[in-house]
């Protein structure tokens, strides 16, 4: 045990290694962390680039109904959709999504096409 003693002493006087969570806030995510994705309805033109490239098939596009359905629970936040989007309509935010009881399904009605025409 004597070999471990310096570590033990250092820990004894060294203060906390963790954050005192309920009393202090959690660490802010890093600037370029991948937390969740957000859609900008004003920019999206329903081209379907994101849906075709999504490895988890989390995005569904229905051009007739002018709908973009996003299954947040399927999303693996790989950022492929944001890279594929030509209109910058998908943003990756560093803040992670809060836990949920039922799987959220976001339905977007993009207006980008009307604006462009």
């Amino acid at each position, binding site marked *: *045990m004597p*070999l*471990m003693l*310096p*570590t*033990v002493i250092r820990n004894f006087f060294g203060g906390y*290694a963790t954050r005192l969570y309920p009393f202090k806030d959690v660490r802010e*995510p*890093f600037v*370029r*962390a*991948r937390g969740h994705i957000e859609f900008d309805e004003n920019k999206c033109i329903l081209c379907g680039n994101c849906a075709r*490239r999504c*490895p*988890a098939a989390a995005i569904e596009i229905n051009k007739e109904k002018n709908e973009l359905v996003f299954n947040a629970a399927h999303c*693996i*936040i*790989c*950022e*492929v959709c944001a*890279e594929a989007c030509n209109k910058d309509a998908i943003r*990756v935010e560093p803040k992670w999504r809060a836990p949920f009881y039922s799987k959220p399904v976001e339905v977007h009605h993009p207006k980008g096409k009307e604006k462009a025409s």
Partner: protein
Amino acid sequence: MAPRTVAPFGPQHPVLPEPIQLKITYEDEKVVDVVPAIGYGHRGIEKACELNEYPKNIYLCERICGICSCIHGISYCEVVERLWPIDVPPRAKYLRTIWSEMSRTHSHLLWLGLLADAFGFESMFMQFWRIREKVLDLLEMTTGQRVTQSISVVGGVRRDIDDEQKKKCIEVLREVRKESEALINVLANDYTVKARTVGKGVLTKEQAIALGCAGPHLRASGVKEDCRMQGLQAYGDLGFEPIVEKDGDCYARTLVRCRELLQAIDLQLEAFSKMPEGEIAVRPKGNPPANEAVYRAEQPRGEVFYYAKGNGTRNLERLRVRTPTYANIPSLLVMLPGCELPDVPVIVLSIDPCISCTER
């Protein structure tokens, strides 16, 4: 003759993070026979890779295993690049090396913690995992996520490390190195640790080669084989020399991983200092041609083998992944018989089992 008892070890056992069952026959407290039973984590990823388009497979391959996920993604990209073949820009090669070594650092810290936990050294376990957290933070800062980094694409990498991040990485890695050295000193010299590991689960050099072991497990038996010796990525420039121990027992395996941990940090620091400027990715032209390729990389647990066969479409004809634990499980059949019951967890853990890797 003493009566024989058959007792299962696993699939749920405190030292096993993942499910594998070993049907062990004991004679009193001595192990006489072992039969492994796997199949609790099979997900059919190889089949799914044939049905997916090839760029989507990167994210699937990363999910073969959580701990070595970064190297799985990189290896998949490398093997698919060999179908054309595509030459990756030098900066991307360095970045891949840095992230590979970073994931090796966190994986070895995780394993050293688990080993300490397996023989009941709880405080050591906490200490190692505390250091590991810093490395995970570095990964999150540079790649965007802690575990599934999704950093590699066919033709290069997706993100660059800028100067500010580089400075921070070097600073934290030096800290990690200093803290790990203090703990490794305890692990390598403490008599309680030695009592649990020295002379346990001995595998000779001849046995290790005949059983086809891989990685630190093989090098602990005195075989100088490491896929980084091929000089791929940036390893050729970094003057890499594999770490070898002679004894082939649990203690030797621990020492190999301890020294590899420090070496991985040194390799990262050196790669940071030598990293060239330039492009980080090239775009592949068209679909993977009808060709086949093999790629071997060194994961924290050993040699990973990727085989890909293209057919000119966006889907691959066949992808085969052989992970290091797949090669190391048969060695348990030789190491376990003859040992005592309390040594079973330490010996099983000393191959660094990763079962979801094995079953894919």
